[in-house]
């Protein structure tokens, strides 16, 4: 029935829009996003399932879900006023969100859900590049990449499989988006470190489409690349949904001014 019409994975460092960077690097990253947008538009999706995260906007340590699906009719973002992205509402898709939720429950994963979610740069920055007119409904799937214990990569892969089951059973065209990473440690004394070796090895596995190998990367290795690298979980969720595809890297730049190894890729 349903179809995954596009699968895009990307970084979301706020510096991408908010901080200056060497022109060649910025152009490469922005160019990667432009190509990803073309892939998305060619797919004519009815909805985007955006596997993403957030940074103490909706959730604090008094109540922290491993996964939270946005079932609301719209979502406002970005909450940040300083990242040069216009703030506004993006339409939601309660019906598709409910289908994903029920399929997940039946498959043994119970995400939390919320009728009202705020979006921060993690979701709004990629959407700013991919759907600047905010004309495609979005179902956000926020994953805890912030405060351990985190859902394991294997668990995120499993959730991706369940998302695919929901897509297959639903009569529509679905684009998948996974955002976060790659190597970074924002706000920490180690923020100047970008583990390019990790990023290149990771992207190599992505090109092979080896999602299972990626989901088996030891947590200790990811920790060494910086806590911001915990966000590769969203790439893993998308990989779980499209295991038959291989990655095409549209851009990778380790941008010192953005404190992040920035990647953009599509799975085809």
């Amino acid at each position, binding site marked *: 029935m349903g179809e995954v019409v596009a699968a895009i994975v990307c970084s979301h460092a706020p510096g991408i829009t908010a901080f200056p960077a060497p022109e060649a690097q910025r152009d490469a990253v922005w160019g990667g996003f432009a190509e990803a947008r073309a892939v998305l538009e060619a797919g004519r999706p009815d909805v985007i399932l955006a596997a993403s995260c957030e*940074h103490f906007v909706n959730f604090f340590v008094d109540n922290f879900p491993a996964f939270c699906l946005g079932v609301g009719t719209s979502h406002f973002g970005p909450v940040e006023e300083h990242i040069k992205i216009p703030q506004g509402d993006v339409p939601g898709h309660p019906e598709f969100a409910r289908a994903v939720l029920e399929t997940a429950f039946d498959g043994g994963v119970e995400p939390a859900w919320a009728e009202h979610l705020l979006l921060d740069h993690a979701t709004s920055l990629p959407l700013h590049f991919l759907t600047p007119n905010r004309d495609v409904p979005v179902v956000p799937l926020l994953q805890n990449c*912030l405060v351990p*214990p985190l859902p394991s990569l294997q668990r995120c892969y499993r959730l991706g499989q369940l998302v695919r089951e929901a897509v297959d059973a639903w009569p529509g065209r679905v684009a998948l988006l996974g955002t976060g990473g790659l190597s970074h440690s*924002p*706000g920490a*004394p180690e923020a100047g470190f970008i583990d390019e070796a990790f990023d290149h090895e990771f992207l190599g596995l992505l090109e092979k489409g080896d999602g299972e190998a990626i989901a088996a990367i030891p947590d200790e290795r990811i*920790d060494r690349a910086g806590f911001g690298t915990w966000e590769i979980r969203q790439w893993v969720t998308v990989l779980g949904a499209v295991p038959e595809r291989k990655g095409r890297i549209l851009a990778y730049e380790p941008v010192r001014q953005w404190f992040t190894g920035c990647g953009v890729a599509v799975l085809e």
Partner: protein
Amino acid sequence: MGLYDVQRVIHDMNVNAALTERFREAPQAFLADYALDDSERAALVDGDVAALWSMGVHPLLMLHYARARRVPMPEFYGALKPLEGQRKMVSARGS
């Protein structure tokens, strides 16, 4: 007092612009509403990011705090640089 209360202050400001304004205009009065000890209060008032990092504040909350307290990024990272390696952010179990 304790890490929860310090992080609570920062999170509350991050999600409520009016509280950020109260902090900026009259920090002592604003912080009196929270159960903080003197060193925690001083760190938040003084923009002492090194002290906050040593207390264990999450790095993303550190950035939210810097924005609320208007600590410029070069000053922020300059103050933290000597503390490199002091804390490890760990997701691996059994570490």
